[in-house]
């Protein structure tokens, strides 16, 4: 009588649901098997989505730590690591908009770094900025570090770069680290923390002047990202519209959230990353669907005489459909709750052990519930075809 309190309201829905629940709970072990199937699907989906969002978040680490109100990029740029430079004159033109206080160019280029111990050469993403502009707020950056890169041939290194680049952070604790960057002698003066993303295995930061030394074919006139700082109290949307109006359409004007969304969209759609994780989610759904369908189908098969009896007693096919769908939805809810709790546990575990920050958000919780719910509905719809076999005339 667990659901007894709701009686009276909508008996057309409530009574078949109660019958479904009574049927499910009557065989505890089968119910447990069905629920564990849903839990499994739930966990699989939570993990796929968790890793996907975590990797998307890591992919926009750089964008998130840029401090500016608006950004300019070449209109053919698809992603930061392979951005097309635009003429620096666009930044000067932007100054004509009254809301714009100042502008700062950011130069980005893939450059070959030599591991000083193994001599192995690997490509990292080098950022060139004016260290006094305050545009770059990479985590772990220090004022000393920013001061150091004004000296010639000095860079700051990504402490969370792939280990193949060398244990730069631990070497740095023992003394100066000297190696080659873009076939030029380089000294590492400090660290920051971004980590590998989809587009780069490691990152380095230096001043504009040093950037042009390491990347000689990249002229100061070729800007990859233009940072625009607005006056205090200025309306960013109005400024964005004004900039779009005066600037030629070889550049696009993005707010910071748009810049982040732009990069995520690239990885989700253009690159196969989104597809791979999406496939994982689909596989989870199919597995769950098959399990729930099997349970419902065999339930109907085993109770076919009882369903036929109900039909003989004057219950409509629609009523029995509601019973089966009720079972499906009860399984969805009963499987989702432990699935969510276990998912949260696995997220905590992953965050603590493998340093991939998986976060349980309201959106993700609702989204996964919707998927599980849909999965159970599909299973139920497939299974109710079996109800046709319940022919009351065969009961005699």
């Amino acid at each position: 009588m667990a659901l007894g309190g709701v009686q009276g309201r909508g008996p057309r829905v409530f009574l078949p649901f109660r019958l479904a629940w009574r049927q499910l709970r009557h065989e505890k072990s089968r119910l447990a098997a069905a629920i564990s199937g849903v839990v499994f699907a739930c966990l699989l989906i939570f993990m796929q989505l968790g890793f996907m969002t975590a990797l998307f978040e890591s992919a926009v680490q750089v964008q998130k730590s840029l401090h500016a109100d608006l950004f300019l990029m070449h209109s053919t740029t698809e992603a930061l690591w392979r951005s097309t430079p635009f003429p620096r004159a666009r930044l000067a033109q932007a100054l004509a908009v009254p809301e714009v206080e100042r502008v700062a160019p950011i130069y980005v280029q893939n450059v070959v770094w030599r591991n000083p111990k193994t001599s192995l050469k690997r490509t990292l993403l080098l950022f060139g900025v004016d260290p006094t502009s305050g545009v770059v707020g990479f985590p772990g950056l220090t004022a000393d570090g920013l001061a150091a890169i004004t000296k010639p041939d000095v860079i700051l290194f990504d402490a969370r770069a792939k280990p193949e680049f060398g244990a730069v952070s631990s070497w740095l604790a023992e003394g100066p680290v000297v190696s080659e960057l873009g076939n030029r002698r380089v000294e590492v003066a400090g660290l920051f923390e971004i980590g590998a993303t989809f587009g780069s295995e490691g990152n380095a930061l230096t001043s504009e002047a040093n950037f042009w030394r390491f990347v000689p074919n990249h002229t100061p006139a070729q800007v990859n990202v233009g940072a625009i700082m607005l006056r205090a109290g200025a309306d960013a949307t109005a400024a964005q519209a004004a900039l779009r109006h005066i600037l030629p359409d070889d550049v696009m004007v993005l707010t910071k959230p748009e810049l982040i969304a732009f990069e995520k969209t690239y990885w989700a759609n253009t690159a196969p990353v989104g597809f791979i994780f999406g496939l994982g989610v689909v596989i989870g759904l199919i597995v769950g669907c098959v399990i729930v369908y099997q349970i419902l189908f065999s339930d109907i098969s085993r109770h076919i005489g009882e369903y036929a009896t109900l039909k003989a007693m004057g219950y409509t096919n629609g009523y029995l459909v509601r019973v089966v769908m009720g079972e499906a939805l009860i399984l969805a809810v009963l499987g989702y709750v432990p699935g969510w709790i276990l998912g949260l546990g696995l997220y905590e575990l992953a965050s603590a052990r493998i340093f991939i920050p998986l976060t349980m958000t309201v959106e993700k919780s609702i989204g996964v519930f919707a998927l599980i719910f849909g999965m159970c509905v599909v299973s139920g719809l497939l299974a109710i075809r079996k109800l046709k076999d319940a022919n009351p005339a065969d009961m005699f």
Partner: protein
Amino acid sequence: MDAVRISGLTHRFGDGETAKPVLHGLDLSVAAGEVVLLTGPSGSGKTTLLTLIGGLRAVQEGSCVVLGTELAGADEATRVAVRRRVGFIFQHHNLLGFLTARQNVAMALEVDARLSEAKRLARADAMLDAVGIGDKARAYPATLSGGQRQRVAIARSLAHEPGLILADEPTAALDARTGHETMELLQRLAKEQHRTVFIVTHDPRIHDIADRIVAMEDGHIIEGAHA
């Protein structure tokens, strides 16, 4: 008024050349409040006749008026409506295994959900008392004996005050004494509540409960078509 009035009822299984006729132009009426036994050898068509009267099969030819509703040419909704006014008792009790005795009986009342849950359960308990197993109201069918299960089935078939009770070999799964006891019970309740009962059986030991015995053979009624 007659509870059942059949004329020229013909039924065949299969189509075209291979069609196998099972009922040949039957005429039969059952008066309200009558207890009628339908006997005959296996394959004589008596179960088919029962399923036609119960609205479980579409009428092919002839007329079959049950509780004032013509079933010839009736759609599924009409047949479902008739079924709700009929109480069925099956050969193998056909109780729902996942429901207790009182919940099983209450299922006969849930079908149109007009009564409150409390009234449904009160009626179910009263019916179980009437069939003499009020103390088993909260037992599951698996824990009941064959006779007790058939008593629950009788209680279920009577609970919604049906105009007609149809029973198919209700004693087949019971020993002679239990079978006779349960049929006597059914007859007594039917008479008390003025219910019409139509029982298909080839159990000669229960002939004494009937007001009238109708005999069938090869799809024809050979005896007792009219009282």
